[in-house]
């Protein structure tokens, strides 16, 4: 019996599960190694659990989401939260700082027809997960390495260093030093391969806080670049802005 894999989705853009479909021939190899039993974006006629590995994308934003997530947790042996929405609440967690009723009125003519929670919260806040992979989107190599490790029965290793270190290793010019461009690389978790600095721009923190993040030092550095406290707070309130270290640091600045 091949191990059964399931892919679930909550409030999100589909980009993380698209990383699975983007794997090309590696996807076909995965389909040979596992039974992709539940993956509505990719197949009709999904089969019920239990599942050996479950990937869950998206954040909790509706009254029904929590119960559905608990059913999923009960049905899955290794549950992996993938992406900034599932691990930090996503960009839609900006509502957590606002009046969601006003948001409803701003976007919809008939707000009373909507069933939505006042907050967007990560999957990890509601059920225990076996692994949490950050990123907006999650990194495809990291995701497949983790799935392969689980299938091989080994413990996946996740590095905890910052984007800044990846940049140095890649020999990319520092955008802070050479362009005076604000960059969240020193406080952001690795995983993207330092894609923004290598493309000539500052990191916007979509992989969330690194374990070693020194946020007060980052705020001081941004101040020397002429970035206001308000704008530094805004920059921390991005795709992973609801992750506690970014949230608390931005609250201290605002």
């Amino acid at each position: 019996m091949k191990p059964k894999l399931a892919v679930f989705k909550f409030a999100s853009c589909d980009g993380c599960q698209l990383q699975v479909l983007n794997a090309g021939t590696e996807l076909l190899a995965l389909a040979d190694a596992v039974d992709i039993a539940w993956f509505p974006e990719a197949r009709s006629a999904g089969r019920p659990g239990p599942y050996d590995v479950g990937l869950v994308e998206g954040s909790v934003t509706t009254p029904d989401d929590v119960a559905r997530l608990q059913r999923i947790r009960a049905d899955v042996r290794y549950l992996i939260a993938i992406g900034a929405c599932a691990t930090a609440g996503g960009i839609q967690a900006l509502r957590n700082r606002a009046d969601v009723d006003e948001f409803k009125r701003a976007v919809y003519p008939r707000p009373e027809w909507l069933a939505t929670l006042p907050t967007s919260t990560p999957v990890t806040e509601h059920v225990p997960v076996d692994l949490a992979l950050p990123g907006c989107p999650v990194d495809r190599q990291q995701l497949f390495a983790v799935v392969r490790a689980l299938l091989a029965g080994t413990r996946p290793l996740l590095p905890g260093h910052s984007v800044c270190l990846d940049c140095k290793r890649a020999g990319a010019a520092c955008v802070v030093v050479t362009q005076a461009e604000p960059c969240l690389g020193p406080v952001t978790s690795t995983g993207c391969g330092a894609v923004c600095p290598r493309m000539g721009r500052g990191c916007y923190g979509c992989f969330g806080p690194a374990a070693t993040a020194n946020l007060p030092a980052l705020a001081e550095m941004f101040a020397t670049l002429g970035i206001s406290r308000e704008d530094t707070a805004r920059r921390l309130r991005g795709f992973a802005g609801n992750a506690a270290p970014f949230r608390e640091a931005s609250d201290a600045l605002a």
Partner: protein
Amino acid sequence: MPSHERSRTIHVEPLARVEGEASLRVEIRNGALVDLKLSIFEPPRFFEAFLRGRRADEAPDITSRICGICPVAYQMSAVHALERAFAVRIDPAIRLLRRLLYCGEWIESHALHVHMLAAPDFLGCDSIVTLAARDRAAVERGLRLKRVGDAILELLGGRSVHPVGVRIGGFSRVPRRRDLAPLREALLRARADAEACLAWVAGFDLPQAEAATEFVALRHTDEYPFNEGDLVSSAGLAAVQTEFEDQFHEYQEAHSTALFARRQAGSTPYFVGPLARLNLNFDHLGDDVAAAARATGIAWPCSNPFASIVARAVEILWAIDEALRCIEAYEPPAAPAAAWEPRAASGSAVTEAPRGILYHRYDVDAAGLISGAKIVPPTSQNQAQMEADLRRLVPRLLELGDDEATRLCETAIRNYDPCISCATHFLNLEIIRS
């Protein structure tokens, strides 16, 4: 359906292979349609609300998170709207690179839809995995086409999902000519795959459902449209992009969290996407692609929504040729991005997302912060048209058994490659008939 059954409710497997959560309810009594509702119940994420107070230059990155499958479309509509607001003039080389980037997104998004989401409908499979067991070569060809689209996004944007290179005025970094050489080789190899893909879908047994439909797309004076051109339709609409809100009206229905849209004049539904673009811009395909499109046996313009998959395959071929043209013509600009200053202003733009026209409007204050935003994606524009298509199928549904009726409804919805990006991906189909 046996006529002795007075009334019946049919629950089927959830429809998969769309991006988002939706359901369809069809109720037929005594041969007459009583009720038909396509409901999207994706949880709203309120982008237009939380954009307020963000810096204008953040809009391309933030709005790209509306859709992981077409992030470039959001980036393109955002930068063009804001460049209009701030009167930024972009370098012709930047314009060319943006066309190249959009080619990448059309290729990857269309290749995904044609092979992974739609083709199984026509070949009696439930997924690309079962399709691969039957026709591995076709699936591998589709994956190669998707890969070449992704490669364009990676070169210009650093990664294929939520690429990071686009900014107001241009790009954060632009390639040298020689950086594009490997991409050119890959595109030349992909062209044969695109031709084979087109021949493959042209051989599918497409349901015939020609009907009077208003197709809407951008039209440019001398090229197939991406970021520029006027709004035109098969019913004679001719308007500039900034008149979008005068021509189209968004409204809400209780059964859907995606807004619907209709024409201001006549309150009628309209059709956007590859079939609309092809119908309205066939003369800009170029001789080779036009000949390949004619060789499918379909007479263009074509009003059969089930021909959408063929239109998508034509656009993959066209986008490969266009990407090659852009690479040939490219000379790096003097600067990767034009300089700009924020000011209190409003700006709007329409660009051609893989699924059809995508409208953005922003109001910006003197500090460069967004004070208002409006975004009208192609899927909400198509929603009313999808319901209209399904209504037309009712007589045919009565003739079919439950499985075939369900499959026809699902296929009719997938014609639009609906991108409902949110929540679980079910179309719970319920057919009630008596």
